[in-house]
């Protein structure tokens, strides 16, 4: 690569191109991921999520009630949703955020922050 040739390449187009190549590789990876791999990844993440719950037995009891009011509960989708919502934030702050935003769940009439309700539903479903 000569200095002349290198000089023709503007810095921004080069970076954009590089990002595009990386995105394509990542996208292909997702597309090619097997169901088993996806499930294992979800189990890994929801295992982490359930670790946020203080008492797993309580969570299962609550979750069983939550599930009665949910149609089409999907462990992987819920795991992905909660993983994204919680991230590295303190769970308490996430729950308050739920309440402020009006994201609520129901467990036998108990009005719960949606994130807690879904965590409990995950516990009841998986663990």
């Amino acid at each position: 690569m000569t200095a002349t040739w290198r000089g023709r390449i503007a810095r921004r187009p080069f970076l954009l191109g590089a990002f595009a190549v990386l995105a394509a590789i990542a996208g292909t990876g997702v597309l090619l991921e097997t169901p088993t791999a996806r499930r294992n990844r979800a189990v890994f993440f929801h295992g982490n999520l359930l670790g946020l719950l203080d008492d797993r037995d309580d969570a299962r009891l609550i979750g069983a009630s939550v599930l009665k009011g949910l149609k089409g509960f999907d462990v992987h989708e819920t795991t992905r949703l909660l993983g994204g919502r919680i991230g590295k934030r303190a769970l308490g702050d996430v729950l308050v955020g739920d309440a402020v935003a009006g994201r609520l769940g129901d467990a036998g009439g108990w009005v719960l922050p949606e994130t807690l309700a879904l965590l409990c539903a995950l516990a009841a479903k998986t663990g």
Partner: protein
Amino acid sequence: LNAFLDARAIPADTTFKPDLAIIGGGPAAISLALALADTPIDMLLLESGGLKYEYPTQQLYAGTETGVKYVALDATRLRFLGGCSSHWGGWTRPLDGVDFEERAWLPYSGWPFSRAELEPYFARAQALVEAGPFIYDDAKTWTDVMGAPLKLGPGGVYTSWFQFSKTRDSDLPTQFGARYEQDLKRIPNLKLMLHANVTGIRLANNAGHVDHLDVATLSGKTFTVKPKYTVLATGGIENARLLLASNDVMKPGIGNAHDLVGRFFADHPIPRDTATMVLFDGNLASYYQNQQTAAGAQVRATLSPSQDFIRARQVLGSLTTVEEEVQLDDLGQAAVSATAAALDVDADNVKAYSLGCGMEMMPDPDRRLMLTDKRDALGMPRLELHMTISDLDFARYRDTMKELGRQLLAARTGMVRLNRKTREEWLSVMDWGNHHLGTTRMHKDPRGGVVDANSQVHGVANLYVAGSSVFPTYSASNPTMNLVALTLRLADHLRGLFK
């Protein structure tokens, strides 16, 4: 003092010709007479009962009920001087501005005037019901002394306030008959007649004004009253009955050209244990559960939807009270424990309380009073009440309770369980306020109401209706103080007619 007259001692064929006949002897009638004391208006107040409960008179109220279970018509009210104030609980709270508004999402809503029209009368009404200084939501000023209010996140439910009627140093609310008996006897321009049952409001042949009233006693006496003006103030049920039964000139009944008299009956449903409220730290100021003195008034806190919330979320009024402490089942304990832990708050002293409430109902023309073929001892047709309550009424209250739960969570203060979901669950815990509303509703248009903005029966020049039967929408607030305020406004209107 003017001794009260007894209709049983009036000679037959007597005709009284007062300026103003007041039919009834409850809070509206008595407030009207007191308000017009010392005017040139010659008043005759006709009370069906005596000074105390009398079974034969009370039986004149008997009727039948269909639909949703309701209180028997002869048990939900009292027929002697003082009327229903002789069994009221003394709870008072003024109507809110939103109660007067026409709301597109609430069919048949809207008074013909705003709250501002009643405001000049609230202070005097408050004095008549003896509820102390007019404080209500200003009671929050005293929470520094009485204890902090519930900490709620921003939202639609707030701590509002009741006040209570007290007869001087008594624990009982003001019973208008006993309380004002001597005051009524001191009114020089008033004749008050007991045991005088108006059995017919007789219109002139052109139906444009009242010609005379038929009066009868259970002892068999009959006589006539020919007033210049008449105010019908016999309560939300009997007002409709008398108008419907006075059908000799107007066949559908007086004021009933548009089939509105007796329709839109309402009361305040009082379902018990509607929700469970948990407070993680267990701290609850005592004024949420019990009356407390603030600046000379007896107050108690209630959890109420704000006016903005009512408008935005299309809910109705409700006044939620904190009742007794309750224990939680396994699911409740788990829910509280998990939520407190997840919110990172201490719940070692957690307490749970049952919530009750007084609700507002949607206006419903099918919730109505109708005359039957059965007759009472005076030959008057007895009533049938068809009672309804909509699932939407319950759903709207649930929305308010859910909002309370949301606000408690947002503040990390506590949480709520909604205890009633199905219609059967709601009806199983239903009680009623015995507040009879709406049956002669007020509307500027005769097609929308029985009386106009001045409480005059549409099309009948000298006939007025007083009391909560004219409320077109009902609020959740208890009606007594509000109907007294409305009656004082009517008194000013009548005073103007005699100038």
